[in-house]
């Protein structure tokens, strides 16, 4: 097929349009375009101050909280290998917020319409944003862990038992990565950044803790952030011996949290296709 083409408009005399049928796109070309969409999304992520603020908050908060806990908690011996993970729960929320803003700000500022016009195969945009949200969660998770360990080191704590450190770091990064993607999925469903972020904070910090008071422990362990936080596997003084005894393994917790993420993403993608790109 012929391609309708125009030469550079800096050379007006040479510009022309043919009436020939423009070239059509194949599924393979859509698949190859994911890379271009990824590049575009990464430019978007790195060129707004909100995301730089998230990174700064992650690092500053991690250092401060770890240092403060190390200094102020004196009734038990603490180690870097434990304290370093305390901030990860908050980092996961920040990663979720980043995921929300990745899509929510596009809807809010109308740039989603431009993106859909440029890439009519909406699954390309959904996949690109999923990978970007995952990368954002990974970067924030790594920064948060580094800050957490750094704060504990600055406070002068001993390293502690590091035999499971690498594994726990891996699970923590999986938690923040999935949190970023969960934020994206929720934003794709709700389409309102404020509502999505508010919902996350209220659910994660308030509602789940309330539900845990009323629900049987066999059920409560399947709540999303209960499962997610158990990926960090440090002992939680608030949990009963029974809850600790029936706690899911880390792979099981990852499956539960990942399941919520997958459902949110799937519903969000379906809605991305079904709704008009306003």
């Amino acid at each position, binding site marked *: 097929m012929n391609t309708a083409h125009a030469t550079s408009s800096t050379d007006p005399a040479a510009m022309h349009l043919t009436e020939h049928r423009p070239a059509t796109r194949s599924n393979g*070309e859509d698949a190859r375009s994911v890379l271009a969409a990824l590049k575009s999304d990464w430019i978007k992520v790195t*060129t707004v101050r909100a995301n730089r603020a998230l990174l700064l908050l992650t690092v500053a908060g991690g250092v401060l909280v770890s240092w403060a806990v190390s200094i102020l908690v004196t009734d038990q011996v603490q180690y870097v290998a434990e304290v370093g993970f305390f901030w990860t729960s908050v980092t996961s929320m920040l990663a979720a917020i980043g995921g929300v803003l990745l899509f929510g700000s596009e809807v809010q500022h*109308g740039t989603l*319409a431009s993106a859909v016009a440029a890439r009519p195969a909406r699954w390309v945009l959904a996949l690109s944003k999923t990978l970007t949200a995952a990368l954002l969660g990974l970067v924030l998770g790594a920064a948060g862990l580094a800050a957490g360990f750094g704060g504990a080191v600055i406070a002068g704590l001993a390293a502690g038992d590091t035999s499971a450190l690498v594994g726990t770091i891996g699970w923590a990064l999986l938690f923040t990565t999935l949190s970023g993607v969960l934020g994206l999925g929720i934003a794709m469903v709700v389409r309102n950044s404020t509502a999505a972020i508010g919902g996350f904070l209220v659910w994660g910090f308030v509602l789940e803790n309330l539900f845990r008071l009323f629900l049987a422990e066999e059920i409560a362990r399947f709540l999303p952030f209960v499962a997610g936080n158990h990926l960090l596997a440090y002992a939680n003084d608030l949990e009963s011996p029974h809850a600790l005894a029936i706690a899911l393994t880390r792979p099981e917790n990852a499956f539960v949290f990942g399941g919520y993420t997958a459902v949110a993403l799937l519903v969000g993608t379906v809605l991305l296709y079904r709704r008009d790109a306003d």
Partner: protein
Amino acid sequence: MITVTGLTKQYGKRLAVDDLSFEVAAGRVTGFVGPNGAGKSTTMRMMVGLTRPARGDVHYAGVHYRDLRHPARTVGSVLDARCMHPGRTARDHLRAAAALSGIPGRRVSEVLAEVGLESAADKRAGKFSLGMRQRLALAGALLGNPPVLLLDEPSNGLDPDGIRWLRDYLSSFAARGGTVFVSSHLISELSMFAHNLVVVGGGRLLAAESVGAITARNDVCVLVETPQPVELAALLAAHGHTVEETADRLVVTGTTRAVVSQIAFDGGIRVLELTETSRSLEDSLLDMTRSSAEFASN
């Protein structure tokens, strides 16, 4: 060429676009006019796949928009100049758009220069005036060097210099073979450079022809003052003339004083005043769309 066939969109019980069919020729500027709520923006959104029509289709030289290999390099569109992140600079906004469509990064500087925004390239879009946002939106549409431009109210917020620049740019774009489809409320401005007009009202097509044809059909009208307006209106209608009754006179379009005078004389109707006037394109279009205007002032 753009071919729109039977485009229809319904929101609940409201039919926003009703079986719209028209063609937009290459090498021409085609204006898209109609009152507020006529369905212009909805139509343009359907033309670039943002809104799904209930029925109908849009093809670009025979290819559906969703099947185009390089949509941004075939159709450049500006549907809302506010569609940009206020915290992102103009340059980064265009970099992201270029990356998404696989367009080389050097085009960013080129289009910024084309629209006169080089000096504001590193300024955040949130600090831009409406006119600057319009220019940035147009720069985004030009990134892919497309042969087709779809613009919804592109002159909103532009100063007279900017409107002239836009008019000249679109005229030369069409003269070089490009296809331009532009909606505007500034009918008088549009009439200075549009070749064809698509007129919609209440979601329906009212006219799709050249500016000259619309002007010629509605050019002349006769104003009649008579103590027997009802009788004269009936007599003129019986002779096949279009008559509109205003507060104090009748307006008969597409005819001459001589014809109206003869009909009145033959009917024994006294005429106090008979004036022949020519109408501007704006008047013609306003008359065409008056009955379908969603919001109209008294």
